[in-house]
């Protein structure tokens, strides 16, 4: 199994270079929101380990909302963000990018502070990498290569299966015929089904340590937590009553800029950023919650669903600027309105848990209730906090998570030994 990892590079855009940077980013697209996978700047399509990637110019959006607390927002300037998800370790991917797209990356980061022609590119990328505090992967271990191979297998078999009733007792024979056809295709080199690679031992150990370490830590501090619980509840409830809610409608131009990038395929990207509520309470709570979310995503929700939501490929929460703001990014199937529908109707509690620590979030109760369930307020809030990704890459447009789930079952059925009649029929019906 090859584990997936997030990569993230953040750099400050040098003064006066914004327009040039935006123009360069636009050059990478064949249409707004549609990257050319072979573009001369950063040809994502040539890096087989990359699932999703995006480049964006991050401004100070919504930092001004801190003034609701009488706090003057810090000047964070403009950032260039490169982030994505890849098979295997992120570190080596950055090395590969630096080696394989050196000129383009130099042109991109040449717009940033402290980057000059003499800068060592790979070292610079590493130095500007930022950790991802909480990361979600829909199906741990599923590689880009596997997704493409299984999708090709499904297309081959679905086109070939006779679309007629299967007479009783015939299912196994039908299946065998299809398997033989697929094998012949494989021998001819037209279909490939690569064997999974074992995960490195170091990864297993690290994962195990994380799986046990976090609960252990929780256990260790639990007496203190228990003692502090009454105070915590009192403090939380009083903040929930006094924290200002701020959901003005997003500006029409902002909305247009976001929508221009959406629904050009079956999968979309979402990025939102916002300041954390001032005060030690929220600033202490955020890292703890992110640790818990990360733990849950890594050890519980890595098999096709994040609680009830089955349409998120990758998602991550990143603390930026020393805790001043949190960045949330995801890649999801379906239209934006359906994504919001899932957020509100299926996992509002989960959103509230973390995002209610952000300035202006719709009022919550007990950290999980109401909040995102306040439909109108929530929808305005998320749009106002959303930021456009000038460049967005998807390694498998046209393949949704549900397709992958079906394709995987098709492959498993192909590789399985003899089946009973019912099982064989169920497999044929997947095609």
């Amino acid at each position, binding site marked *: 199994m090859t584990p997936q990892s997030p990569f993230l590079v953040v750099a400050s855009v040098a003064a006066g270079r914004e327009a040039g940077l935006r123009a360069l980013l636009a050059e990478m697209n064949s249409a707004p929101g549609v990257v050319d996978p072979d573009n001369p700047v950063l040809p994502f399509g040539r890096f087989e380990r990359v699932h999703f990637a995006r480049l964006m110019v991050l401004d100070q959006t919504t930092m001004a909302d801190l003034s609701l607390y009488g706090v003057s927002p810090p000047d964070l300037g403009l950032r260039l963000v490169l982030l994505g998800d890849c098979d295997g370790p992120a570190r080596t991917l950055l090395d590969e990018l630096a080696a394989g797209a050196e000129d383009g990356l130099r042109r991109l980061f040449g717009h940033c502070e402290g980057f000059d022609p003499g800068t060592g590119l790979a070292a610079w990328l590493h130095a500007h990498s930022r950790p991802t505090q909480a990361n979600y992967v829909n199906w741990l271990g599923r590689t880009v290569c596997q997704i493409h191979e299984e999708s090709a297998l499904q297309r081959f078999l679905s086109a070939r299966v006779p679309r007629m009733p299967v007479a*009783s007792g015939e299912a196994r024979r039908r299946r065998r015929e299809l398997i033989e056809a697929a094998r012949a295709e494989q021998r001819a080199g037209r279909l490939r089904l690569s064997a999974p690679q074992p995960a490195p031992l170091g990864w297993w150990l690290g994962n195990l340590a994380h799986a046990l370490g976090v609960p252990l830590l929780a256990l260790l501090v639990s007496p203190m937590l228990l003692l502090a619980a009454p105070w915590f509840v009192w403090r939380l409830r009083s903040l929930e009553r006094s924290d200002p809610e701020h959901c003005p409608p997003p500006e029409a131009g902002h909305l247009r800029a976001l929508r221009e990038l959406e629904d050009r395929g079956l999968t979309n990207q979402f990025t939102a950023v916002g300041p954390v509520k001032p005060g030690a309470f929220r600033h202490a709570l955020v890292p703890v919650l992110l640790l818990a979310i990360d733990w849950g995503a890594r050890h519980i929700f890595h098999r096709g669903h994040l609680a009830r939501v089955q349409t998120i490929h990758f998602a991550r929460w990143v603390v930026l600027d020393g805790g001043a703001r949190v960045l949330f990014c995801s890649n999801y199937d379906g239209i934006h309105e359906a994504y919001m529908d899932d957020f509100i109707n299926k996992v509002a509690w989960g959103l509230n848990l973390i995002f209610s620590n952000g300035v202006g979030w719709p009022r919550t109760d007990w950290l999980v209730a109401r909040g995102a369930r306040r439909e109108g307020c929530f929808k305005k809030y998320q749009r106002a906090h959303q930021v456009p990704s000038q460049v967005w890459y998807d390694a498998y447009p046209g393949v949704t998570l549900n*397709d992958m789930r079906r394709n995987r079952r098709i492959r498993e059925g192909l590789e399985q030994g003899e089946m009973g009649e019912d099982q064989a029929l169920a497999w044929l*019906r997947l095609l």
Partner: protein
Amino acid sequence: MTTTTPRPVELDDVQGLLRFGYSHHTEACFLLLRVKDPAAARAWLAQAPVTTAVEAKPVPATAMQVAISGPGLAALGIPDDLAAGFSEEFLAGMAGDEDRSRRLGDLDSSHPSNWAWGAGDAVPHVLLLLYALPGHLADWRRSLEAELASGFTLQAELDTADLAGREPFGFRDGLSQPEVDWERRRPVEDRDRLEYGNLTCLGEFLLGYPNEYGLYTDRPLLDPGRDPGVLLPRAEDRPELADLGRNGSYLVLRELRQDVAGLWRWLAQQAGGDLDRARDWAEAMVGRKLDGRSRIPGARGLNGFDYAADPEGLHCPFGAHIRRANPRNADYPAGTRGILARVRRFLGFDAGALPQDLVASTRFHRILRRGRAFGTPPVPEQALAEPPPTAGTGLHFICLGANIGRQFEFVQSAWIQGTRFAGLPGEGDPLLGHRLPGPDGAPSDCFSIPRADGPDQRLCGLPHFVEVRGGGYFFLPGIRALRYMTRPR
């Protein structure tokens, strides 16, 4: 949860179309108007005899409804800051930008640039819906047109046809509607629903009332200083403000041209001339029999069914028009009973339930349909004759709702055009799909019919049967709001 009895609905302030389909009024015509002289237009609208939702006995011979578009508000002199309180979708308009068209599937020959009306400068300002008992339309319409001439130019008239409860493809239509909670029986609360139900909160259709989330949808609320004559009702949720939205709704109108001959000829050809088979396929595509009966075994009457008994789509395919347009499910997959099952499903741990959980909570996506057919469609047998009949026919699709984005647009884009609806392998609505390939070149022009004893049957290469010819978003105001907006100044 409120314990006080809610205020009864002011039916005399609600336009009748919200409550009635005017099915006795078999003659109907929709006038698309542009404002020529704002003062004259306002003066006419201020006294327009709009029919209300109060039940009249005997039924009136004629009924008129008035709706105004976003540009119409400006043309009538409604201040911008007031109009800004309406929803974003309404203000932007159905053909307002390419992104919306893409989401709605208005592409190719259905693209707004090919519309007869509703795009660019051709957005109507005011929509007048005229309904009349048999024999009462022609004269009324003529005298109205004369009255309107001083304030408006007549952009287009959409005639309708009485097809005796059928739509042009030949299916019975208008059978399933949400039951609007006029008595306000549904408690105002935000609670999960474990059963699919047809009774839907008033606020899903009428602005100014709580919706299915127990919340009030955004609408223009005015400082009372702007309504010195107290023409407007006060907002229920904010009694200090005047409510311009209350008792109003949004109206979506789309002129959908149907290729009736195309549908039947294609199906007959696919079926190798076997007309029973062709009909069976057409019924699978709609999700009902031609005469309106459900395909779900054990359905009680025409609407006593949901899809819990058909989890594999063996009776009504997942892709069928009515299953897409209303998946009839609750907030959790069917059969969620007991606290343990609920917790498991809440966390997504019930692997068996996940496939059915791809689409949930239909109650937030209901629409009230009020469309009318137009033209003279051939009956299926005529459709097959040589030469094929060509006369224009179709549906003036109309639906009402308090939230265009969450209701009409969601249903149209996520469910009807969505090629992965409920986990389908890549196909749009068999009647309404745009048929264009996806960005990866994968076709979207198939229709899958699941069967128990083998792989799905698949009809592929479906032609484009329905083309959009025009459309728009309108506000169907409450009577007092209409008087307020058109009062003399």
